[in-house]
């Protein structure tokens, strides 16, 4: 009998189960976890670091951290993918500091063409995505673009100022106000 694809909740559970096993020191759990999560994490790292060799090194650091810190994750019962993506993003930002890698001055998100409407079911496993989508709609296009350039591309205020051609002070205030509006909306 053909098995249907597991639901997004199942996937979350599976990632969580693997992380719990890592927390318990079961080294056999790390490889399946790697196979599930590494393409997205490597995509994240290459996007921020722009250099493949550096991203490969960072991915190793990230999985070493995941292995070592799985116990912390297990204890706080967060969302597995959010936790792993955060580890990857923080590591990449950390490496940017050392590398002083110049950002590529090509806007990745030019006119903010809203790609196709994300499939609700496909993204359903990502926590509160519908809520975030709704809240993002309340921001101005510029605020939204700044948040995406920062979160996805790992760009600093200065990078975004150069990328978008807007003064640094303006960027800082767009981001600050964008985050403020988001918080009000998310917590309302």
């Amino acid at each position: 009998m053909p098995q249907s694809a597991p639901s997004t909740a199942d996937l979350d559970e599976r990632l969580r189960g693997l992380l719990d096993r890592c927390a318990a020191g079961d080294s056999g759990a790390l490889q399946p976890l790697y196979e599930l999560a590494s393409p997205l994490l490597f995509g994240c790292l290459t996007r921020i670091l722009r250099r493949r060799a550096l991203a490969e090194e960072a991915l190793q650091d990230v999985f070493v951290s995941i292995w070592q810190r799985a116990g912390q994750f297990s204890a706080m019962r967060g969302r597995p993918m959010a936790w792993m993506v955060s580890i990857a993003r923080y590591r990449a930002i950390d490496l940017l500091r050392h590398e002083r890698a110049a950002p590529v001055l090509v806007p990745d998100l030019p006119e903010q063409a809203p790609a196709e409407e994300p499939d609700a079911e496909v993204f359903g496993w990502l926590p509160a995505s519908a809520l975030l989508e709704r809240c993002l709609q309340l921001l101005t296009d510029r605020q939204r673009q700044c948040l995406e350039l920062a979160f996805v591309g790992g760009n600093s205020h200065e990078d975004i100022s150069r990328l978008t051609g807007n003064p640094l002070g303006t960027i800082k205030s767009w981001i600050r106000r964008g985050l403020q509006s988001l918080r009000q909306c998310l917590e309302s």
Partner: protein
Amino acid sequence: MTPQNPNVVDRLAAEYVLGTLRGPARRRFERWRGSSALVTQRCLFWEEQLIPLARALQPVPPPLHVWEGIRARLNLPEHRARARPAYALAIAASILMIIVLGAVVYWRTTQPGRLSEVATISAPAGTAAWQVEIYGERGRLIVRAGQLPPRPANRDFELWALPTGGKPVSLGLLPAGGTAERTLTEAQLQALSHATQVAVTVEPAGGSPTGQPTSTPIFVVPLRTVS
């Protein structure tokens, strides 16, 4: 000193998670994070709220040596791969859907060993259509699909080794997406050891019925030896 004002903590946490808190301020914040439950809690809030922005990320399969590096760094034993249950494949299918654009999840059914030869199949100045990796020692072939050329209906792309002075030897069908991995036969390995090029042809669905290419190759690319 940890800021006490919850609004300040939240503002810093948001910019930390977003990545725009940089320099000494970021490092200071990281220290606070480790010592304050409030800071930890606000970071967690933003990490989980902003993660859907990651949908704009394009998954990229890391090269195989990265896993080997992790295993070595953690001094993990090499686990013999087991046959994966259908459930795992179903999960792979879901991840592909979740991860949207051109996601490539690969499943290693064995440790493929050392990469010996590689070929990148791409149009001139184009993005790679397939990446072909040959692990000679263990006789494994791994093909990762990238941005594929348009495929006529009821046709498949077939990969060929072009041994010098011999007839092309089929290396099987190329995947329309994701990653394909298979064990090479003795004849295929033999052909590859005498080949400096591989080719791709468009064949009837299921592959050439004759065992030889039935059309002119759409790609002929060098097979590079990895030292």
